[in-house]
């Protein structure tokens, strides 16, 4: 463990993240991945996954050095096959109710699998030759799981957002870079209030605009006309744009909250310069690109978003932080947990 108690003589400086990949390069990697995956009936997808991650980690720089990803594709393939077999076994439920135990076991194993997935992911990620790590915090994982369920049920769903914070806190508090530990401060309620405040305000604002437009159209007589076919389209489009807006609000606000409350050994911290309006324009632009290219701009869009997020994030650390990380004991686990988590869209990582 690094010395956290003695104040460092040199103040923390900000080191911007920088993504040096580009769309054309990633396009070639992606298309070869996809081509080989199709030709090998999905088997290559494990290698493709590793290569894609490596591309993004290798090109993500902070203070002159980039990250790396070391997962063994064979392990990922085994994880995928197992997940596939379990998926098939769900069909057995119809043969006899005894097989109902499979989905039930799977559900109960959720928190265990999340820990396994986190260990797999973090121990296979490195920075400056030092591996990240994750503790075998099975008990805390189940506690987090119960808290997340309880906060959703007892608030009748209103507090569901808080569970997102609990999981993020669980991940941050149990991960490490070498021997350096991280910590996510703040409370679930703070997070909830921070998010709900803007959701509520923007929700009210949107409602006012929506009602204004509807009544405006109504009084101008447009809505009752038979030929006003575009009016319902306009109203539905407004709702879609608002959903998109809330998505961006969510991204930006969580980035601000988490970076403000994340700290680590050696004076580590994070800073985000994401702003709402600018981010909204960026996402709108990328979505537009995807639509007019029927989705084929995918690699360019993915790179542009990674670049944008990196450019607006700084790591705060003392200069010696980068040279003083120490390697910790490595653990080796199967990739099954990681595969389950990524199929559930559970985000283990930064």
């Amino acid at each position: 463990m690094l010395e956290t108690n003695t104040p460092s003589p040199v103040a923390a400086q900000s080191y911007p993240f920088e993504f040096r990949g580009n769309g054309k390069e990633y396009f070639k990697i992606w298309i070869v991945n996809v081509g080989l995956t199709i030709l090998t009936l999905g088997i290559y997808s494990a290698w493709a996954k590793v290569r894609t991650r490596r591309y993004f980690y290798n090109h993500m720089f902070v203070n002159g050095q980039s990250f790396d990803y070391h997962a063994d594709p064979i392990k990922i393939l085994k994880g995928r096959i197992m997940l596939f077999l379990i998926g098939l076994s769900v069909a057995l439920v119809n043969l006899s109710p005894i097989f109902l135990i499979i989905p039930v076991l799977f559900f109960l194993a959720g928190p265990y699998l999340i820990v396994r997935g986190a260990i797999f992911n973090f121990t296979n990620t490195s920075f400056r030759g030092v591996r990240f790590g994750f503790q075998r915090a099975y008990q805390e994982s189940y506690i987090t799981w119960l808290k997340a369920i309880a906060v959703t049920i007892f608030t009748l769903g209103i507090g569901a957002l808080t569970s997102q914070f609990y999981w993020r806190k669980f991940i941050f508090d149990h991960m490490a870079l070498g021997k350096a530990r991280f910590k996510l401060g703040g409370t679930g309620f703070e997070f909830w209030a921070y998010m709900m405040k803007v959701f509520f305000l923007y929700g009210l604002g949107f409602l006012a605009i929506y009602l204004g437009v509807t009544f405006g159209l109504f009084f101008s007589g447009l809505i009752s006309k038979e030929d006003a076919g575009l009016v319902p389209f306009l109203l539905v489009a407004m709702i879609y744009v608002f959903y998109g807006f809330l998505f961006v609000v969510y991204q930006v606000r969580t980035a601000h909250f988490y970076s403000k409350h994340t700290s680590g050994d050696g004076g580590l911290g994070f800073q985000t310069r994401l702003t709402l309006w600018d981010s909204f324009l960026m996402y709108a632009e990328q979505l537009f690109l995807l639509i007019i290219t029927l989705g084929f701009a995918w690699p360019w869009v993915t790179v542009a978003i990674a670049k944008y997020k990196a450019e607006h994030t700084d790591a705060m650390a003392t200069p010696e932080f980068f040279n003083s990380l120490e390697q910790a004991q490595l653990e080796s686990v199967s990739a099954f947990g990681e595969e389950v988590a990524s199929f559930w869209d559970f985000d283990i990582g930064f």
Partner: protein
Amino acid sequence: MRINGLLFDGQNSRARPAALYRLGEQVILEYDGQSRTFERKDVNVLSRLGSAPRAIEFPGMMRFESSSHDEIDQVFGGLSSFIHKLENNTQLVVISVVTFVAFCVASYLWIIPATSRFVVHKIPQSYIDKIAQKMEGEWGLGESVTLAAENQDKLETITSRLTHSFPGQQVRIRPVEMDGMANAFALPDGSMMVTQPLLELLSTDQALAVMMHEMGHVTYRHGLQAMAGQMIISVLLFFTVGGGDFTAIGQNLVGLSYSRRHEREADLFAAKHLKEIGLKPSLLADGLKRIEKSVSRRREGAGGLPTFMSSHPLTEERAKYLKELD
């Protein structure tokens, strides 16, 4: 040839200037004024990836990093960068693009529809019943409603005529309440729902035509096909793009397009069976138009959505092809 780079010794994160060269089956690494010798087979040269610095891994988690890509290829041979060569071979990239486009088109036109058609006929009835029960609960369909006498008569006539048209099949129609709207639909288990306003609004023949359309959904198991299709799409997306913020949009658009295709199939099914009992297919068009009118009068309905965002083809379009079948 010497390759210059940085060494991380696997113990800590300090970057040390280092150099590396090869003597036959031995690799010599120089750093911190010392020189260490390794067997070539113990040294792992990672494949080239875009323009990122390349890592060469040594035992004990030692990591040598260098951007001298060409020198590394020369010293260690091209084998380690086979995939990188694929990625920079224009012909192969073009072939991959063509394969991918062909795969997308084939998935959309054949693989997804054929697989979902195949799958739905393998699903056991008990499982289908379970899904249908769940959907009824989610949509808040509740108990059957008591119909006014003349509507009850209409429903009985329709049921007996459908039973006559489809001898082997069990025709189950349940009257339900849905926000007072004229509506009819089919559940995956083959039961059909109809609301009182629909029976009131349409003539017996028109309502029969609408229920024939629903019989089409039942016969082709469209509801289950749609579910299976969504599952297949999400698995395909998982393997090709690995999920992400925008994939849900594409998935929805494809789902909507299949839904429009199913509606057309059910319309043609209804048209065929209406003709068999001496009725005109345009009866269905008349019924649909009336329903649409009553719904759009109650709220600014989905009538104005552009086709690609809508689950049904435009009613005018449906009326046109149904008229042609008269």
